[in-house]
């Protein structure tokens, strides 16, 4: 998990999706999740996934990172689909649901800095949860970096190479143990900083100064359109199922247009 790359994309990216209000993006995420909940049509889900992929391309997000993050749950979904033995089409549907939902979440996280995502959550959660959410994400950056450094140092000192599985495993465990101790020292340092600054609950996140209203509206309208398509196909499935191929086709067209736009404005 390359959290640094996720954060870089969220903070340094410049696109209409980056400009949309975080609340609008969270509403859009909810609408796409609604579509995923409602739809059991693999073609409709594929179409929604393609439309989201088009948004990833149009917003100039890092493609490899987005694909890795969205593809990660598909491994587990595949195992679940196989284990549940519901047949090929339903297995494909389960995987499509996993990838589509993950892609929607990834779109939000790759275009919104984490304090902006957590600040709406902070308002509705108890103080300890909201504040710990903010500090967890920050700590995860530091610990991932520390883990990689420690692992590298241990491997170099022990002269480890790729295929020494047992020794490599032992080195990784030792590195994780060291990182655990380091994390407790980090907690102590954080505590000292909080105490020095007079923290008595509720870390404050500065609200975004500007966001684009058209971009926010576009994000919400697009996601509601995707939800409506899923709902329509679920309700009117008898008459619409023969036309299901239209949805992925439209998604594909959107993806091609987005790719063309990205290539032309490179």
């Amino acid at each position, binding site marked *: *998990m390359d959290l640094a790359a*996720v954060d870089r994309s969220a903070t340094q990216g410049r696109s209409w999706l980056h400009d949309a209000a975080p609340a609008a993006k969270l509403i859009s995420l909810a609408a796409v999740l609604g579509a*995923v909940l*409602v*739809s*059991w049509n693999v073609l409709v889900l594929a179409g929604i996934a393609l439309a989201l992929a088009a948004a990833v391309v149009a917003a100039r997000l890092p493609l490899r990172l987005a694909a890795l993050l*969205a593809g*990660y*749950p598909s*491994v587990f*979904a595949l*195992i*679940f689909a*196989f*284990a*549940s*033995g*519901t*047949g090929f089409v*339903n297995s494909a549907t389960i*995987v499509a649901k996993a990838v589509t*939902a993950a892609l929607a979440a*990834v779109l939000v*996280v790759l275009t919104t800095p984490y304090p902006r995502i957590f600040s709406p*959550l902070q308002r509705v959660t108890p*103080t*300890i*949860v909201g*504040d*710990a*959410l903010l*500090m*967890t*994400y920050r*700590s*995860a950056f*530091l*610990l991932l970096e520390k*883990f990689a450094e420690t692992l590298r140092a241990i491997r170099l000192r022990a002269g480890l190479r790729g295929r020494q599985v047992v020794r490599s495993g*032992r080195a990784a*465990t*030792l590195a*994780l*143990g060291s990182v*655990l*101790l380091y*994390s*407790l020292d*980090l*907690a*102590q340092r*954080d*505590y000292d900083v909080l*105490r020095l600054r*007079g923290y*008595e*609950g509720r870390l404050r996140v500065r609200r975004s100064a500007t966001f684009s209203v058209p971009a926010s509206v576009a994000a919400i309208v697009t996601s509601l359109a995707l939800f409506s398509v899923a*709902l329509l196909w*679920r309700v009117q*499935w008898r008459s619409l199922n023969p036309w299901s191929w239209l949805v992925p086709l439209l998604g594909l067209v959107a993806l091609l247009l987005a790719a063309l736009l990205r290539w032309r404005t490179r």
Partner: protein
Amino acid sequence: MSHIHIPDGVLPLWLWASGWALALALVALASLAGRRHELRRRVPILAVISAIMLVAMSSEIVPIAYHMNLTVIAGILLGPALSIIAAFIVEVVLALLGHGGVTVLGLNTLIIAAEMILGWALFNAFSRLLARRAAGWAAGLATVLTLLTTTTLLVGIVALAQNPAATLRETGALDPSTLRFGNPFAEGAFRLGLLSPEEAPATGVPPISVSRFAAVVYSLGPIGWLIEALITAAIVGFVARVRPGLLWQNGPAAKMSFGRRPAGDEAARH
């Protein structure tokens, strides 16, 4: 198979909504319990231990679809109340990164929290039974038993999703005259069973095979439990050698708050 890797939209609404409600209630209770103690001591330790779990969960062993969790170690260090909050925080961040569904976040919180609390209780029990020098063994045993229990819990959740009588409850309400769950929304969108494939046979979605799911989970799971137990045992053994106070003298979370004020912290306004 620590937490549910079931995508959004597979489990029935009543099940995941109940998971959300129960998880939120537990998180609220755990947060209230925390208010009596010091927030600024608890927030950093909660954050770093949650981050450690995130670091572990971000590395997947692809062939067996398993990733490290470190939930037992986290439970030992945090204790029961903070474990519930840590489980929720970890699941929120994972859901945002596309790992684990948003709808199953509540159920996942319950499973992870159960794992942390059970791991903490079993480790303490085994530590009393075995000598302290065998901390690694105690942690390893606690991990295997905990993962076996929570995997069974996971299979139980999938089995619950199969119960057709239960799925009626997602759109229905208890009829006091018959003590049965009826459907008050006889017409409209609810009648279509939009959110429950089990109630819409016309769409052709067959139920999940629980026995097959259990067979796969129980055959792949032990490999993961063994790896997790070995790593947990090694880490706990390492911590027991270099900083034993973290494991037995109430743990860092307890030392940092519960009951007494740590030295040097006068809680004065600055």
